[in-house]
Protein backbone atom coordinates (compact mmCIF):
# COMPACT_ATOMS: atom_id res chain seq x y z
CA UNK A 1 0.00 0.00 0.00
CA UNK A 2 1.31 3.47 -0.85
CA UNK A 3 0.49 6.85 0.71
CA UNK A 4 -2.16 7.73 -1.88
CA UNK A 5 -4.02 4.48 -1.27
CA UNK A 6 -3.66 5.00 2.47
CA UNK A 7 -5.18 8.49 2.28
CA UNK A 8 -8.04 7.06 0.27
CA UNK A 9 -9.09 4.65 3.00
CA UNK A 10 -7.79 6.21 6.20
CA UNK A 11 -11.23 7.55 7.16
CA UNK A 12 -12.96 4.21 6.92
CA UNK A 13 -10.55 1.86 8.63
CA UNK A 14 -13.15 1.11 11.31
CA UNK A 15 -16.28 1.43 9.18
CA UNK A 16 -18.11 -1.88 8.61
CA UNK A 17 -18.77 -2.86 5.04
CA UNK A 18 -16.16 -0.54 3.53
CA UNK A 19 -13.01 -1.00 1.55
CA UNK A 20 -10.96 0.51 4.38
CA UNK A 21 -11.89 -2.19 6.86
CA UNK A 22 -10.98 -4.86 4.34
CA UNK A 23 -7.42 -3.52 3.97
CA UNK A 24 -6.98 -2.41 7.55
CA UNK A 25 -4.00 -4.68 8.26
CA UNK A 26 -2.12 -3.48 5.20
CA UNK A 27 -2.89 0.12 6.18
CA UNK A 28 -1.53 -0.37 9.69
CA UNK A 29 1.68 -1.87 8.31
CA UNK A 30 2.04 1.11 5.99
CA UNK A 31 1.39 3.58 8.83
CA UNK A 32 4.16 1.99 10.91
CA UNK A 33 6.60 2.72 8.15
CA UNK A 34 5.35 6.20 7.16
CA UNK A 35 5.31 9.05 9.69
CA UNK A 36 3.01 11.22 7.60
CA UNK A 37 0.40 8.47 7.22
CA UNK A 38 0.77 7.58 10.90
CA UNK A 39 -0.09 11.20 11.68
CA UNK A 40 -3.12 11.03 9.35
CA UNK A 41 -4.30 7.87 11.06
CA UNK A 42 -3.95 9.42 14.51
CA UNK A 43 -6.01 12.41 13.38
CA UNK A 44 -8.65 10.14 11.87
CA UNK A 45 -8.88 8.14 15.08
CA UNK A 46 -9.15 11.36 17.11
CA UNK A 47 -11.94 12.49 14.85
CA UNK A 48 -13.75 9.19 15.28
CA UNK A 49 -13.39 9.52 19.02
CA UNK A 50 -14.81 13.06 18.89
CA UNK A 51 -17.76 11.85 16.85
CA UNK A 52 -18.39 9.13 19.40
CA UNK A 53 -18.34 11.69 22.21
CA UNK A 54 -20.67 13.97 20.32
CA UNK A 55 -22.99 11.10 19.39
CA UNK A 56 -23.13 9.91 22.99
CA UNK A 57 -23.76 13.43 24.20
CA UNK A 58 -26.67 13.88 21.77
CA UNK A 59 -28.16 10.40 22.03
CA UNK A 60 -30.96 11.53 24.34
CA UNK A 61 -31.87 14.60 22.34
CA UNK A 62 -35.46 14.61 21.21
CA UNK A 63 -38.18 17.06 20.38
CA UNK A 64 -40.24 18.34 23.33
CA UNK A 65 -43.64 16.70 24.05
CA UNK A 66 -45.52 19.62 22.50
CA UNK A 67 -44.30 18.50 19.06
CA UNK A 68 -45.71 15.02 19.61
CA UNK A 69 -48.98 16.55 20.80
CA UNK A 70 -49.15 18.70 17.68
CA UNK A 71 -48.51 15.86 15.24
CA UNK A 72 -50.98 13.57 17.02
CA UNK A 73 -53.59 16.30 16.80
CA UNK A 74 -52.81 16.68 13.11
CA UNK A 75 -53.20 12.92 12.69
CA UNK A 76 -56.64 12.96 14.35
CA UNK A 77 -57.74 15.94 12.27
CA UNK A 78 -56.56 14.27 9.09
CA UNK A 79 -58.39 11.08 10.04
CA UNK A 80 -61.65 12.97 10.54
CA UNK A 81 -61.18 14.93 7.30
CA UNK A 82 -60.44 11.73 5.40
CA UNK A 83 -63.54 10.00 6.70
CA UNK A 84 -65.63 13.08 5.84
CA UNK A 85 -64.19 13.16 2.37
CA UNK A 86 -64.84 9.48 1.89
CA UNK A 87 -68.57 9.75 2.74
CA UNK A 88 -69.62 11.34 -0.60
CA UNK A 89 -67.50 8.79 -2.42
CA UNK A 90 -69.14 5.97 -0.52
CA UNK A 91 -72.58 7.40 -1.30
CA UNK A 92 -71.64 7.77 -4.95
CA UNK A 93 -70.38 4.19 -5.02
CA UNK A 94 -73.58 2.95 -3.39
CA UNK A 95 -75.66 4.96 -5.88
CA UNK A 96 -73.72 3.55 -8.80
CA UNK A 97 -74.13 0.03 -7.48
CA UNK A 98 -77.86 0.57 -7.04
CA UNK A 99 -78.15 1.95 -10.59
CA UNK A 100 -76.33 -1.06 -12.00
CA UNK A 101 -78.56 -3.46 -10.06
CA UNK A 102 -81.66 -1.62 -11.27
CA UNK A 103 -80.46 -1.72 -14.87
CA UNK A 104 -79.69 -5.43 -14.63
CA UNK A 105 -83.10 -6.06 -13.05
CA UNK A 106 -84.90 -4.15 -15.80
CA UNK A 107 -82.94 -5.99 -18.46
CA UNK A 108 -83.81 -9.36 -16.98
CA UNK A 109 -87.44 -8.37 -16.69
CA UNK A 110 -87.45 -7.15 -20.28
CA UNK A 111 -86.00 -10.45 -21.41
CA UNK A 112 -88.44 -12.42 -19.30
CA UNK A 113 -91.61 -10.61 -20.47
CA UNK A 114 -91.57 -11.74 -24.09
CA UNK A 115 -91.49 -15.34 -22.89
CA UNK A 116 -94.65 -14.76 -20.93
CA UNK A 117 -96.35 -12.47 -23.43
CA UNK A 118 -95.36 -14.35 -26.54
CA UNK A 119 -96.37 -17.43 -24.69
CA UNK A 120 -95.79 -20.99 -25.48
CA UNK A 121 -95.45 -22.54 -28.93
CA UNK A 122 -99.18 -23.00 -28.70
CA UNK A 123 -99.77 -19.25 -28.58
CA UNK A 124 -97.35 -18.76 -31.44
CA UNK A 125 -99.08 -21.42 -33.39
CA UNK A 126 -102.48 -19.90 -32.76
CA UNK A 127 -101.35 -16.44 -33.76
CA UNK A 128 -99.82 -17.86 -36.90
CA UNK A 129 -103.04 -19.65 -37.61
CA UNK A 130 -104.93 -16.39 -37.16
CA UNK A 131 -102.66 -14.65 -39.67
CA UNK A 132 -101.67 -17.38 -42.11
CA UNK A 133 -100.26 -14.89 -44.62
CA UNK A 134 -97.65 -13.63 -42.20
CA UNK A 135 -94.19 -14.77 -43.34
CA UNK A 136 -94.47 -18.49 -43.18
CA UNK A 137 -90.73 -18.89 -43.60
CA UNK A 138 -89.81 -16.76 -40.63
CA UNK A 139 -92.55 -18.23 -38.49
CA UNK A 140 -91.28 -21.64 -39.33
CA UNK A 141 -87.81 -20.56 -38.38
CA UNK A 142 -89.01 -19.21 -35.01
CA UNK A 143 -90.85 -22.43 -34.37
CA UNK A 144 -87.71 -24.25 -35.28
CA UNK A 145 -85.89 -22.37 -32.54
CA UNK A 146 -88.59 -22.91 -29.97
CA UNK A 147 -88.92 -26.58 -30.61
CA UNK A 148 -85.29 -27.15 -31.38
CA UNK A 149 -86.11 -29.35 -34.29
CA UNK A 150 -83.26 -28.70 -36.63
CA UNK A 151 -83.80 -31.82 -38.66
CA UNK A 152 -87.26 -30.95 -39.97
CA UNK A 153 -89.13 -28.13 -41.62
CA UNK A 154 -92.71 -27.07 -41.37
CA UNK A 155 -95.32 -25.01 -43.15
CA UNK A 156 -97.16 -22.19 -41.42
CA UNK A 157 -100.13 -23.08 -39.25
CA UNK A 158 -103.46 -23.12 -41.00
CA UNK A 159 -106.59 -22.43 -39.01
CA UNK A 160 -109.05 -25.30 -39.10
CA UNK A 161 -112.78 -24.90 -39.74
CA UNK A 162 -114.68 -24.23 -36.51
CA UNK A 163 -111.60 -22.99 -34.67
CA UNK A 164 -112.11 -20.52 -31.84
CA UNK A 165 -110.75 -16.97 -31.77
CA UNK A 166 -107.06 -17.39 -30.88
CA UNK A 167 -107.24 -14.42 -28.49
CA UNK A 168 -109.83 -16.20 -26.35
CA UNK A 169 -107.97 -19.50 -26.12
CA UNK A 170 -106.08 -20.44 -22.97
CA UNK A 171 -104.10 -23.61 -22.39
CA UNK A 172 -104.19 -26.39 -24.94
CA UNK A 173 -101.38 -28.30 -26.60
CA UNK A 174 -99.57 -29.07 -29.81
CA UNK A 175 -99.48 -32.72 -30.75
CA UNK A 176 -97.60 -34.43 -33.51
CA UNK A 177 -99.95 -36.56 -35.62
CA UNK A 178 -99.65 -38.56 -38.82
CA UNK A 179 -102.49 -38.08 -41.23
CA UNK A 180 -103.29 -39.51 -44.66
CA UNK A 181 -102.83 -37.31 -47.74
CA UNK A 182 -106.52 -37.47 -48.47
CA UNK A 183 -107.42 -36.32 -44.95
CA UNK A 184 -105.08 -33.38 -45.28
CA UNK A 185 -106.47 -32.48 -48.66
CA UNK A 186 -109.96 -32.47 -47.22
CA UNK A 187 -108.80 -29.92 -44.67
CA UNK A 188 -107.66 -27.69 -47.53
CA UNK A 189 -103.93 -28.11 -46.91
CA UNK A 190 -101.63 -27.74 -49.95
CA UNK A 191 -100.26 -31.29 -50.11
CA UNK A 192 -98.84 -31.16 -53.60
CA UNK A 193 -95.42 -32.73 -53.13
CA UNK A 194 -95.20 -35.56 -55.60
CA UNK A 195 -92.68 -37.36 -53.46
CA UNK A 196 -94.77 -37.27 -50.35
CA UNK A 197 -95.99 -40.57 -49.00
CA UNK A 198 -99.53 -41.45 -48.21
CA UNK A 199 -99.09 -40.64 -44.52
CA UNK A 200 -97.81 -37.19 -43.67
CA UNK A 201 -96.75 -35.95 -40.25
CA UNK A 202 -98.33 -32.74 -38.99
CA UNK A 203 -98.52 -30.61 -35.85
CA UNK A 204 -102.04 -30.19 -34.59
CA UNK A 205 -103.01 -27.40 -32.20
CA UNK A 206 -105.64 -28.44 -29.72
CA UNK A 207 -107.61 -26.19 -27.45
CA UNK A 208 -107.93 -26.94 -23.73
CA UNK A 209 -111.07 -28.97 -24.39
CA UNK A 210 -109.30 -30.99 -27.11
CA UNK A 211 -110.92 -29.33 -30.15
CA UNK A 212 -108.49 -29.01 -33.12
CA UNK A 213 -107.67 -25.38 -33.85
CA UNK A 214 -104.86 -25.30 -36.42
CA UNK A 215 -102.51 -27.58 -38.27
CA UNK A 216 -99.21 -27.44 -40.11
CA UNK A 217 -97.32 -29.95 -42.17
CA UNK A 218 -94.01 -31.31 -41.04
CA UNK A 219 -91.43 -32.89 -43.25
CA UNK A 220 -88.13 -34.53 -42.29
CA UNK A 221 -85.06 -32.99 -43.96
CA UNK A 222 -83.19 -35.17 -46.36
CA UNK A 223 -80.03 -36.42 -44.61
CA UNK A 224 -78.03 -35.68 -47.72
CA UNK A 225 -78.79 -31.95 -47.47
Amino acid at each position, binding site marked *: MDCAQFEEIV*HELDRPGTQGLAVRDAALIHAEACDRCAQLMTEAESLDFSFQLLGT*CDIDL*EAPPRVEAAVLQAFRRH*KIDSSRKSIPWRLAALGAAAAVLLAVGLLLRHDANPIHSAGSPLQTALSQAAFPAAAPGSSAAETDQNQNEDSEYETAYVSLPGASDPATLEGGAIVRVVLSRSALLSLGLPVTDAGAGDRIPADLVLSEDGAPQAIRLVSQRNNNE
Partner: protein
Amino acid sequence: MAEAMELTDDGLVRRMIAGDEEAFSLLYRRRHPAIYRFALHMSGNTAVAEDVTQEVFMALVRDTKRFDPSRGTLGGFLYGIARNHLRKRWEQDRRLVALIDDDVDSPPSNGNVHHYGNRTSGNGFHANGNAQDNGNGHHPASLSRDEFASLETISRVRQAIATLPENYREVVVLCELEELSYEEAASALDCPVGTIRSRLHRARALLVEKLREAQPVRRASAVGE
Protein backbone atom coordinates in the same frame (compact mmCIF):
# COMPACT_ATOMS: atom_id res chain seq x y z
CA MET B 1 -49.03 -2.00 22.40
CA ALA B 2 -46.45 -4.78 22.84
CA GLU B 3 -47.64 -6.26 19.56
CA ALA B 4 -47.26 -2.90 17.84
CA MET B 5 -43.75 -2.51 19.25
CA GLU B 6 -42.66 -5.61 17.35
CA LEU B 7 -43.96 -4.28 14.06
CA THR B 8 -41.58 -3.02 11.42
CA ASP B 9 -41.79 0.53 10.17
CA ASP B 10 -43.63 -0.68 7.06
CA GLY B 11 -46.17 -2.53 9.19
CA LEU B 12 -46.73 0.54 11.32
CA VAL B 13 -47.16 2.69 8.22
CA ARG B 14 -49.82 0.29 6.90
CA ARG B 15 -51.66 0.45 10.21
CA MET B 16 -51.28 4.21 10.25
CA ILE B 17 -52.87 4.46 6.79
CA ALA B 18 -55.77 2.44 8.16
CA GLY B 19 -56.20 5.13 10.84
CA ASP B 20 -54.41 3.48 13.77
CA GLU B 21 -53.30 6.34 16.01
CA GLU B 22 -51.29 4.04 18.26
CA ALA B 23 -49.22 2.92 15.30
CA PHE B 24 -48.55 6.52 14.31
CA SER B 25 -47.62 7.44 17.87
CA LEU B 26 -45.19 4.54 18.05
CA LEU B 27 -43.72 5.44 14.69
CA TYR B 28 -43.21 9.00 15.87
CA ARG B 29 -41.51 7.92 19.08
CA ARG B 30 -39.32 5.51 17.21
CA ARG B 31 -38.23 7.84 14.43
CA HIS B 32 -38.46 11.41 15.64
CA PRO B 33 -35.25 11.62 17.75
CA ALA B 34 -33.05 10.95 14.72
CA ILE B 35 -34.95 13.48 12.63
CA TYR B 36 -34.78 16.04 15.41
CA ARG B 37 -31.03 15.53 15.85
CA PHE B 38 -30.48 15.75 12.10
CA ALA B 39 -32.42 19.01 11.91
CA LEU B 40 -30.63 20.36 14.97
CA HIS B 41 -27.19 19.56 13.61
CA MET B 42 -28.07 20.96 10.23
CA SER B 43 -29.67 24.15 11.55
CA GLY B 44 -27.95 24.62 14.90
CA ASN B 45 -31.21 25.90 16.30
CA THR B 46 -33.61 23.99 18.56
CA ALA B 47 -36.67 25.98 17.44
CA VAL B 48 -35.96 25.18 13.80
CA ALA B 49 -35.29 21.55 14.68
CA GLU B 50 -38.66 21.34 16.45
CA ASP B 51 -40.46 22.96 13.52
CA VAL B 52 -38.79 20.70 11.01
CA THR B 53 -39.54 17.59 13.08
CA GLN B 54 -43.16 18.63 13.32
CA GLU B 55 -43.33 19.38 9.59
CA VAL B 56 -41.78 16.03 8.71
CA PHE B 57 -44.38 14.05 10.62
CA MET B 58 -47.23 16.27 9.44
CA ALA B 59 -46.07 15.56 5.90
CA LEU B 60 -46.07 11.87 6.73
CA VAL B 61 -49.66 12.17 7.96
CA ARG B 62 -50.76 14.06 4.83
CA ASP B 63 -48.89 12.02 2.23
CA THR B 64 -48.29 8.64 3.80
CA LYS B 65 -48.95 6.95 0.48
CA ARG B 66 -45.94 8.72 -1.02
CA PHE B 67 -43.75 6.40 1.03
CA ASP B 68 -42.84 3.40 -1.11
CA PRO B 69 -40.98 0.69 0.88
CA SER B 70 -39.55 -0.69 -2.37
CA ARG B 71 -37.64 2.57 -2.93
CA GLY B 72 -36.02 2.85 0.50
CA THR B 73 -36.48 2.82 4.23
CA LEU B 74 -38.88 4.99 6.16
CA GLY B 75 -35.90 6.59 7.87
CA GLY B 76 -34.48 7.63 4.50
CA PHE B 77 -37.87 8.95 3.44
CA LEU B 78 -38.17 11.06 6.60
CA TYR B 79 -34.62 12.40 6.32
CA GLY B 80 -35.45 13.41 2.76
CA ILE B 81 -38.50 15.39 3.90
CA ALA B 82 -36.48 17.00 6.70
CA ARG B 83 -33.78 18.00 4.25
CA ASN B 84 -36.33 19.59 1.91
CA HIS B 85 -37.88 21.56 4.75
CA LEU B 86 -34.49 22.78 5.91
CA ARG B 87 -33.63 23.92 2.41
CA LYS B 88 -36.93 25.74 2.09
CA ARG B 89 -36.23 27.54 5.33
CA TRP B 90 -32.78 28.53 4.21
CA GLU B 91 -34.14 29.79 0.94
CA GLN B 92 -36.71 31.90 2.78
CA ASP B 93 -34.09 33.13 5.21
CA ARG B 94 -31.66 34.18 2.51
CA ARG B 95 -34.25 36.73 1.42
CA LEU B 96 -34.24 38.32 4.88
CA VAL B 97 -31.73 40.90 6.01
CA ALA B 98 -30.52 40.75 9.61
CA LEU B 99 -30.92 44.05 11.45
CA ILE B 100 -28.56 43.20 14.30
CA ASP B 101 -25.73 40.77 13.84
CA ASP B 102 -25.03 39.53 17.34
CA ASP B 103 -23.07 36.55 16.15
CA VAL B 104 -19.99 38.27 14.90
CA ASP B 105 -17.66 35.85 16.64
CA SER B 106 -19.18 32.76 15.13
CA PRO B 107 -17.03 30.93 12.62
CA PRO B 108 -17.54 31.52 8.91
CA SER B 109 -20.20 29.33 7.43
CA ASN B 110 -21.96 28.58 4.19
CA GLY B 111 -24.63 31.09 5.08
CA ASN B 112 -27.06 28.65 6.59
CA VAL B 113 -25.68 28.22 10.05
CA HIS B 114 -25.04 31.93 10.39
CA HIS B 115 -28.78 32.59 10.53
CA TYR B 116 -29.69 29.86 12.95
CA GLY B 117 -26.58 28.91 14.81
CA ASN B 118 -26.49 31.53 17.52
CA ARG B 119 -24.73 29.35 20.02
CA THR B 120 -24.21 32.04 22.62
CA SER B 121 -27.73 33.37 22.83
CA GLY B 122 -29.48 30.19 23.83
CA ASN B 123 -31.15 29.27 20.56
CA GLY B 124 -28.85 26.39 19.82
CA PHE B 125 -26.35 24.36 21.81
CA HIS B 126 -24.88 25.38 25.16
CA ALA B 127 -21.16 25.65 25.56
CA ASN B 128 -21.21 22.29 27.32
CA GLY B 129 -22.31 20.72 24.11
CA ASN B 130 -25.94 20.00 24.93
CA ALA B 131 -29.03 21.48 23.42
CA GLN B 132 -30.69 24.11 25.52
CA ASP B 133 -34.20 22.79 25.97
CA ASN B 134 -33.47 19.30 27.06
CA GLY B 135 -32.13 20.00 30.48
CA ASN B 136 -29.57 17.25 30.49
CA GLY B 137 -26.53 19.53 30.60
CA HIS B 138 -24.27 20.07 33.60
CA HIS B 139 -22.73 23.26 34.83
CA PRO B 140 -19.10 23.37 33.72
CA ALA B 141 -17.96 24.30 37.24
CA SER B 142 -19.03 20.93 38.55
CA LEU B 143 -16.96 18.99 36.05
CA SER B 144 -13.58 17.38 36.42
CA ARG B 145 -10.76 18.50 34.13
CA ASP B 146 -11.19 15.40 31.94
CA GLU B 147 -14.92 15.90 31.64
CA PHE B 148 -14.45 19.52 30.84
CA ALA B 149 -11.86 18.60 28.23
CA SER B 150 -14.36 16.17 26.69
CA LEU B 151 -17.07 18.79 26.62
CA GLU B 152 -14.68 21.26 25.14
CA THR B 153 -13.81 18.74 22.48
CA ILE B 154 -17.49 18.12 21.80
CA SER B 155 -18.13 21.81 21.53
CA ARG B 156 -15.24 22.32 19.11
CA VAL B 157 -16.28 19.38 16.94
CA ARG B 158 -19.87 20.53 16.94
CA GLN B 159 -18.78 23.99 15.89
CA ALA B 160 -16.51 22.61 13.20
CA ILE B 161 -19.33 20.47 11.79
CA ALA B 162 -21.64 23.48 11.79
CA THR B 163 -19.23 25.39 9.58
CA LEU B 164 -19.02 22.68 6.92
CA PRO B 165 -20.79 23.27 3.63
CA GLU B 166 -24.32 21.89 3.73
CA ASN B 167 -23.72 18.86 1.49
CA TYR B 168 -20.70 17.81 3.58
CA ARG B 169 -22.44 18.53 6.85
CA GLU B 170 -25.42 16.33 6.10
CA VAL B 171 -23.17 13.41 5.21
CA VAL B 172 -21.18 13.80 8.44
CA VAL B 173 -24.37 14.01 10.50
CA LEU B 174 -25.88 10.92 8.88
CA CYS B 175 -22.81 8.71 8.57
CA GLU B 176 -20.82 9.72 11.64
CA LEU B 177 -23.33 10.93 14.22
CA GLU B 178 -26.37 8.87 13.23
CA GLU B 179 -24.14 5.98 12.12
CA LEU B 180 -25.98 5.26 8.89
CA SER B 181 -24.24 3.09 6.32
CA TYR B 182 -23.17 4.63 3.01
CA GLU B 183 -26.15 2.92 1.36
CA GLU B 184 -28.65 4.26 3.88
CA ALA B 185 -27.23 7.75 3.60
CA ALA B 186 -27.31 7.54 -0.18
CA SER B 187 -30.98 6.57 -0.01
CA ALA B 188 -31.77 9.41 2.40
CA LEU B 189 -29.92 12.02 0.35
CA ASP B 190 -31.00 10.56 -2.99
CA CYS B 191 -27.51 10.31 -4.44
CA PRO B 192 -25.06 7.52 -5.36
CA VAL B 193 -23.07 5.68 -2.71
CA GLY B 194 -19.85 6.89 -4.35
CA THR B 195 -20.93 10.48 -3.81
CA ILE B 196 -21.54 9.81 -0.13
CA ARG B 197 -18.13 8.22 0.23
CA SER B 198 -16.29 11.02 -1.51
CA ARG B 199 -18.20 13.74 0.35
CA LEU B 200 -17.54 12.07 3.68
CA HIS B 201 -13.88 11.73 2.83
CA ARG B 202 -13.65 15.40 1.94
CA ALA B 203 -15.73 16.47 4.95
CA ARG B 204 -13.51 14.56 7.35
CA ALA B 205 -10.40 16.09 5.80
CA LEU B 206 -11.95 19.55 6.25
CA LEU B 207 -12.85 18.79 9.86
CA VAL B 208 -9.33 17.61 10.61
CA GLU B 209 -8.01 20.85 9.15
CA LYS B 210 -10.45 22.95 11.18
CA LEU B 211 -9.68 21.12 14.40
CA ARG B 212 -5.95 21.29 13.71
CA GLU B 213 -6.29 25.05 13.27
CA ALA B 214 -8.14 25.32 16.57
CA GLN B 215 -5.46 23.39 18.49
CA PRO B 216 -2.66 26.03 18.58
CA VAL B 217 -5.08 28.63 19.97
CA ARG B 218 -5.95 26.34 22.86
CA ARG B 219 -2.32 25.46 23.43
CA ALA B 220 -1.33 29.11 23.36
CA SER B 221 -4.03 29.97 25.85
CA ALA B 222 -2.92 27.09 28.04
CA VAL B 223 0.66 28.40 27.95
CA GLY B 224 -0.56 31.84 28.98
CA GLU B 225 -2.31 30.51 32.09
